[in-house]
């Protein structure tokens, strides 16, 4: 009788134990392997890095982005009810897929478990598509804006379709006024999405903001932002309040089919014409719409918008949305603009039969204060006063209340 046939009972039970160790090893293995591979990029000073990022040609790429928000909002589990919806970005982890040619064409898809919300930019046009309600929204420029777009050839921002957050966009906002109001340091190099990356740490030079620090990882070769993490003053060191970063990225021009879009047969199509105020006309425009007033600067800046049609906003009224959209940009408040856009895009995404009662959500998310209602997150405060003014800033709620 051979020994293999007479294995003791104990030896036989060792087999599943070994299998368990193998499984545990496979789970723990990849991070250990990644740690062994130290990136070795040439040294760079903060100024050199900022210059490189600013001057870098946007590179065509595609990849998977994970967006994690810990904003302290009671929105957990919402996406499980509604399918892929930008409101899910306000809390928890979301996965997005990004394709871009580096210029004017891109596609960003927010993945739900069996649903998808896509935003496709193709030059002067943009589409959003929600698989949950099978609705396409097609954004085009009006004639005047289209003519200006064609003259300018490039550099024009595509129309006001909702944006889904990507590391590039978040980094752009964080770096906008970086030198004036922040101290920038270069941290040790890291590996992000399998790429050797530089890490920049941006710390606001003020205590008046909710933002503690921002960390940006940029690819060592193309200087494409790979990851942005934002810590709020109420966070612990390990868990940023907002984190958006690639988990894998490929630098190659995506398929043409990916970067174009045509509405599927049977889908409801909503046409939106966007008029971008030209530079000369912006004076006139300000006569109609009270321009948003900005108080303070840098990280502490607060935007005040008068005459907000809140009821219209909550009902998804396009006109009210257009007014609110005029509040862009919000200098210095990186996550603020993003959050605002998420609110906007949520309301916009809910054309057709509304899947979520916006008014009920508003009641749920905001709390009552003497001045009106307050939406308080770890990174952004919003005060909606009873007389219809909207105050937004990455500052404590008390600061907004004092201003109101």
């Amino acid at each position, binding site marked *: *009788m051979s020994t293999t*046939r007479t294995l003791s*009972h104990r030896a*036989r*039970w060792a*087999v*599943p134990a*070994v*299998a*368990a160790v*193998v*499984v545990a090893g*496979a789970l723990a293995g990849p991070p250990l392997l990644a740690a062994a591979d130290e990136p070795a990029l040439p040294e760079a000073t903060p100024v050199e890095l900022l210059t490189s990022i600013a001057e870098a040609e946007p590179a065509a790429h595609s990849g*998977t982005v994970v967006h994690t928000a810990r904003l302290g909002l009671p929105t*957990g*589990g919402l996406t499980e009810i509604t399918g892929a919806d930008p409101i899910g970005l306000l809390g928890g982890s979301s996965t997005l*897929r990004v394709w871009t040619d580096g210029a004017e064409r891109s*596609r960003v*898809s927010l*993945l739900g*478990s*069996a*649903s*998808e919300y*896509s935003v496709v930019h193709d030059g002067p046009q943009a*589409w959003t*598509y929600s*698989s949950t309600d*099978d609705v*396409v929204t097609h954004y085009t420029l009006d004639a005047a804006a289209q003519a200006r777009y064609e003259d300018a050839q490039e550099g024009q921002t595509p129309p006001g379709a909702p944006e889904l957050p990507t590391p590039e966009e978040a980094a752009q906002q964080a770096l906008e006024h970086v030198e004036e109001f922040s101290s920038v340091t270069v941290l040790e190099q890291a590996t992000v999405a399998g790429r050797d990356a530089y890490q920049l740490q941006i710390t606001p030079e003020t205590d008046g903001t909710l933002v503690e620090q921002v960390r940006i990882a940029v690819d060592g070769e193309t200087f494409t932002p790979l990851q942005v993490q934002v810590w709020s003053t109420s966070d612990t060191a390990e868990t940023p309040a907002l984190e958006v970063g690639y988990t*894998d990225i490929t630098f190659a021009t995506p*398929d043409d*089919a*990916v970067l174009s*879009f*045509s*509405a*599927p*047969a*049977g*889908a409801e199509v909503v046409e939106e014409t966007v008029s971008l105020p030209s530079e000369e006309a912006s004076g006139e425009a300000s006569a109609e719409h009270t321009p948003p007033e900005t108080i303070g600067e840098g990280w502490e800046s607060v935007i005040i918008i008068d005459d907000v049609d809140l009821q219209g906003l909550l009902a998804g009224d396009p006109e009210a949305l257009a007014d609110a959209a005029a509040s862009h940009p919000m200098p210095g408040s990186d996550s603020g603009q993003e959050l605002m856009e998420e609110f906007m895009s949520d309301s916009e995404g809910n054309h057709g039969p509304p899947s979520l009662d916006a008014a009920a959500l508003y009641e749920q998310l905001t709390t009552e204060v003497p001045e009106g209602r307050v939406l308080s997150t770890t990174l952004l405060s919003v005060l909606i006063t009873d007389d219809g003014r909207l105050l937004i800033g990455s500052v404590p709620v008390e600061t907004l209340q004092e201003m109101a």
Partner: protein
Amino acid sequence: MSPAETATPTTAPRTGGGVRHLLGSELRLVFGRRRNVVLLLGLAAVPILLGVVIFITQDTVVGSQGPGFIGRVAGNGLFLVVAALFTCLPFLLPLTIGIVSGDAIAGEAATGTLRSLITVPVPRTRLLLVKAIVALCFAAAAVLTIAIVGLITGWVLFGISDLVLLSGDTITAGAGLFRVLGVAAYVAMSMSGLVMVGVLLSTLTETPVAAMAGTVTVAVVSAVLDSLPQLSAIHPGLLTHYWIDFAEFLRLEVDPAALAPGLLVQAAWVLLAGTIAWSRFTTADISS
């Protein structure tokens, strides 16, 4: 030393023909059993029933309603396959798998045939392997039944046209057929972990019903745990967590990296449940 251990054959290992012979006879046994045929027929009824209901109600107000992909079936018969698999995934497929894989060893023990099986020169390891393969084949056949019947029913009732992906892009019907077959293949692979859990439970008891109920319970409990956000830390390891990921085949570009976690989790469950079943079965007393 237990009497069972002495019952382990001591003859020289048989050739591969022995496995093939045993596999053939076990396959005939399982697929020939009336109860199992009825199970497959029951699963085949799901896409037909679903298709007919959608066909009748498609022009009414409730026609386009329904979870997941059901609302899209009326426009394209290909979606009936996906909708039927989606409908069977939470309970009917685990139930079918539980009945067959839970019966694998315990059924033989209950009818008293296990002892005679292992006293004829069939090593226990080989017997367990064959039982597991047959249970896996049955699970694959169950998924295939739903897919094929769904495809035919969808084609007859709604016709097959270009497929609209979750991203809103349209692909040709031929490419769409491949996507739908990918969905079926992924669902079949997703069942492998549960099949091995059933085989494991089947080695722990001589009462087949206990192993069957246990297997279904494992699937249901796993789904319940998966729905609790407080337990998100253990979700990636749950048997059922990635089952819904078949939707990856309906996205614009099928990313193999997105399919890998689900398949790896199944592989881990197959490995663990399989080795525990082996240890248990090769060391257990078998007296009936």
